[in-house]
Structure formats: structure tokens, C-alpha cells
């Protein structure tokens, strides 16, 4: 059952890659959008892998231990960050929504029409992606530290007995 989730995910990715490819001749031309697509797919792969990690941590009830619970939070924040980054990359491609004023100066700002202020605001907030990825790495650090303490305590307990 658990294996089938992984298989379905991998097969889904393979299907997406195959169906989204354009017809080509002997050698495929890799035009500019391909880089973005690859990057987005990499983000998606990142999300899936973190999701699977959370699944196994919960399935095996490792989250009952504080260290692994913190690792779980780290994975969750990495998922959120990936979603955030994907949104940013998507909105980056929507050039008509906003424009940058005073680019290259300290007073640079993001300007948009009143009609597209919502997406512009979303883009602005999404650009603050480190507010998600830094907590993710901090949670991972905290989780590892707790696992280390646990391991040290177990080792000293073993040596004591």
C-alpha cells in the first residue's frame, strides 16, 4: 500500500514529463521555458518527497518523539516554501501584472494597476520566501539537536548499565 503511493507519484511525474513534451525531430530544441519548467518540477519533486517523509514519520509514529516531530515541522515548512517559490516563479512570468520602478536603486519598488493589486500583493509577500525556508532549516537543526541529545542520553544509559 505504502509502496503504491511512491509508484503512483513517480509514474505521475513520468506521465507529466511525457505528455507535456512537444513533438520534436531527431534532436529536441530546449527553448527558454524549459528551464523554468524543470525548476518548477524540481520544486514539485521536493514537495512530494517531503510529503512522503511526513507520511512515513507519522505512519511509524516517530512524531511521538520530539526530535522527529521537529523534523516533521521542518518538512512541512519546506513544502510551504516550495509552494511559495512555485507561486513566485509563476507570477514572475506574468509580466503585465506589475512592474519594477527605480530598478537598480535602493528606492526600487513594485508598482501595479489597482485591478491587479491582489496578485501583486501575493507576489510581494511570496517574495519573502526566506520567512518559510529559514524556519524549515531551523526546525531541522532543532530536531537534529534533540535527536543527538536523545542518542547521547541513551548511550550514557547503556554504558551505565
Amino acid at each position, binding site marked *: 500500500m505504502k509502496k503504491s503511493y511512491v509508484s503512483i507519484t513517480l509514474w505521475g511525474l513520468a506521465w507529466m514529463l511525457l505528455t507535456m513534451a512537444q513533438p520534436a525531430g531527431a534532436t529536441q530544441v530546449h527553448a527558454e521555458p524549459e*528551464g523554468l519548467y*524543470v525548476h518548477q518540477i*524540481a520544486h514539485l519533486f521536493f514537495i512530494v*518527497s517531503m510529503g512522503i517523509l511526513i507520511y512515513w514519520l507519522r505512519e511509524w509514529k516517530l512524531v511521538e518523539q520530539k526530535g522527529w516531530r521537529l523534523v516533521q515541522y521542518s518538512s512541512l515548512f519546506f513544502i510551504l516554501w516550495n509552494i511559495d517559490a512555485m507561486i513566485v516563479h509563476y507570477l514572475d512570468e506574468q509580466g503585465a501584472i506589475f512592474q519594477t520602478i527605480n530598478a537598480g536603486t535602493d*528606492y526600487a519598488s513594485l508598482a501595479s494597476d489597482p485591478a491587479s493589486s491582489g496578485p501583486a500583493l501575493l507576489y510581494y509577500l511570496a517574495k*519573502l520566501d526566506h520567512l518559510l525556508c*529559514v524556519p524549515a*532549516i531551523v526546525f*531541522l537543526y532543532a530536531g537534529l539537536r534533540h535527536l543527538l541529545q536523545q542518542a547521547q542520553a541513551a548511550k550514557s544509559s547503556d554504558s551505565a548499565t
Partner: protein
Amino acid sequence: MTLPLFPIWMVDLAGSSLMILFSFLCVRLARRLKNQDQSNVIWTYLLWLCYALAAFAISRSVGHIAKRILLTAGHNDIWNLLRPYSGSINSLMFVVVASITLFFERTWKVYQQISKDQRALQEAHEELIYLNRNLEHLVAARTQELALSERKYRRIFEVSRDGIILVDGGAAIINLNPAGLALLGLSSLTTDGERIRFSHFFAAAEEWRGIQEALERQGFVPDTEVLLKTDRGALFPVLLSGTAETGDNGAIDSVQFLIKDISQRKAMEKQLLQADKLASIGQLAAGIAHEINNPLSMILGYAQLMLRGEQEGTQQYADLKIIEKHARNCKTIVEDLLSFARSTQTRRTVGHVHAALDEVMSVVRHHFELDGVHIEKNFGAQVPQMILDAEKIKQVFMNLIMNAKQAIGRKGSILLRTRYDAAHARVSIEVRDTGAGISREHLPRIFDPFFTTKPTGEGTGLGLSVSYGIVKDHDGDILVRSEPGQGSTFTVLLPVTTTRGAEIDNGG
């Protein structure tokens, strides 16, 4: 709507720096975890994940910082040159991190399996240690029990009053306890370097064959009376039992024999038989004597009465004398019979056996010396006075001394020896002669009434029987030791009783 980009840049720069910092801190922690237990595959997995995340953090954060610096410095062209590489490396790092993350399930299962195996190994190890320790204790306890048991059975073997003999399949003696050694008269189990065979101690070869057959047939021999002989040839009866141990091929490997010396029991049985026989005869004799005594007295009385009215020298006087003489003889025999049957009155007083012996000697000495028979006396100074019927005891001594004289015939000596055995509180009186001795076949019968080896008319065969009865009546015993041609020794054993004033009347 206008939103300043500066906060975004600040968060970008600070966040990128923090990402690099914490990713390296994560690597450091993961390395410490790994060092904690090198064999832990989960820590290895986390280390690799941290390495990938550090690479991801560097690639992304360095890209972001470089972008901000280059764009701020107005080097848009350089950034445009670097941007595809930065983006591509970022994409690759995502894939690497994601790929490593996906290995968690497999890694965890491997870790679980290893942990399970380790636990099983540890449990097996602990169990082995536990068993090993217990085994040591168990073996130690068992060894102690065996040592105790061995000591116990060794002691039984050593102190047993019965002989315990272990022989091999060929009857060679393997082991023998001290009682067995004493019984068989052995000092060692070998002679001329060879083991002594148990079969050699059987007086009758057919008895050994019978035992062998029984062992082969049923594996044991129940209590069986056999006659053994010591190393010097002395015969003695034993009660023998044995159990065989057979090997895988069914042949007898060894046999444990238990031998019980029953010489004393046999002697006692003979004595009992003798006593029974004498008692029966005594009862019979007493009955006859009682019936005959009165008519004999009448015959003797009338014969003597008629003699008074007859002149000496007449035929009738001579006939009456013959009647009187034979009537007296008969009366003597009857009195002896009554004495033997203890039916005559017994009067016990304080007396001394030396006085009785001296009195008897004074009667017979002159007569004996005429025949060249010398009487020696060796009286023990410690012999005390005792309660006895002096007349009857004198009769015993007279009988024994007269028997000795008759055994000697002419020329010889008789030794009268007395001793006091304080330990058993008894006096022994020996009458030893240098006469012809008593043959082995006659020895068991000498105390039988009417048994005599003398010619007809010279003895009634009641002397020793009567003596035996008198001694027994005194709670004593009479023993005889004799070798044909070497003379005989009669020993009277009398218990010393000092209860003064107790005159005991027996019989009637």
C-alpha cells in the same frame, strides 16, 4: 499600488545567510550523531540529507546574494550570464535533496532490521552469558553433590562389615573393601603382578559355576549360601549376592558381590540344634528316670532287707548281692539322668571353684599317680568366690578329670588352670590333658546323652551330658578344643555372681 522592494532584499540577504549558517550547523549535528554511533544507518542518512541541504543552501543563497550584489552594483549583464547556471544548479539541488529524502523509508526499514538483529544478537549473547553462568553454578553444585555422594558411598564401602567385591567379566577382583580383604585373608589384590580371581575363593567349583550361570541368565544372584575359603585355605560359610553390569554387546562387564560371613550364625544354629536335642532327650530321660526311680528303690530296699536274713557265703546271699549291685548301678544311672534333666535339687551357696577342684584332686590324685598320670594345677590368684552348687560343680570337675584320665590311659599329665576374666565377670576352668584327643567326627556328639567311645560297661555316656546340664544350669558354658593325638582341653566358663545369702532351689 506601490510596494518597496527593500524589505524583500533585506529578508533575502539575511535569510540566505541564515540558510547557509543553519545548514552547516545541521551538518555539524549530523556528524556528531554519526560519530555517536558509526553503525547507525539513520544517522548516516541524516548526514547525507544535511550535506544535500547544505549544498542546496549554498547554491541558492549564494545565487541570491550574488544577484543582489550584482544588480545593486549595476552589473545586470554579469547576473544575466550567471542566472541560468544558478537556476540550473538550484534545480539539481532540489532533485538531489528530494531524492535523498525519498530514501528515508528504505533506510528506516534497514535500520529497523539491523536494530532487530542487534537486539536478537544481544539477547542471544545475554542468554548465552546467563546460561554460561548458570551452567557454571549448576556444574559446581552438581560436582559438589557428586563429591558428597562419592564420599558417602566410599564411606559405606570402607566401613561396611560385609565384604563388597567388584570383579570384572573374567572374575578378576577390581576392588575390594577392607571387610572383604579380611574375610578372604588378602593383603593385596594382585599376586605375581596378576589380579586375583574371586573364583579361586570358592571351596566348591560347581558353586561358582552356578553363580556364573545365574548372572548370565538373570543378571543377578539373590542371597545364596556358599562355602568360601580364605587365602590360607580356612573354610567359612557366607551369604553371597551379586549384580552384573553388562556392556553394549550384552557381555558381563563387571559384577558387584556382597558377601556376608555367616560362620557365627551357623555356629549358633548348631548350638541351638544341640540345645534342642539335649532338651528333648532330657525331658524324655527325666520322665523315664522318674518312673524307674521308685521301683529301683523298692528293689534295692528289699534286696538289702533280704540280705540281712541270709548268711554270707551262701548262694542266695551272693545272688542278692548281685541284685543289690546292679540295682545300685541302675540307681546311679537314674540319678545321672535326673541330674542331666535338672530334675534333681540344686542348692547354691557361696563357694570357691578352687576348693571344689582341690577336693576332687584329693580324691583322685593317689589313684592317678599309680597309673603315672600327673596332675598339675595353675590357679589364678584373682579368681573370686562365687555362688554355685559346690556338689554339682565338683561332679562336673570329676567327670572332666575322669574323662581326661581315661583319654590318657597310662602316663601323661592333666593341667587344671583357672583364670578370672574381669571384663566379662566370669571364671574359666580349663582341664587339659595329653591324651589321645577326640576325632573330628566325634566332637559334635560328645555332649549327647549315652554317647560314648568306651567299651560297653565302662561308661554310661552320661558324664559330659550331665556336666553340660549342670554348667548350663549355672548360666555358664562348656567348650572343647581337641586335636587327635594332641590331647583335649575342656573349658568351663562360669559367670561370677556375688549375691550373698541367695540360696536358690531349683527343680523338684
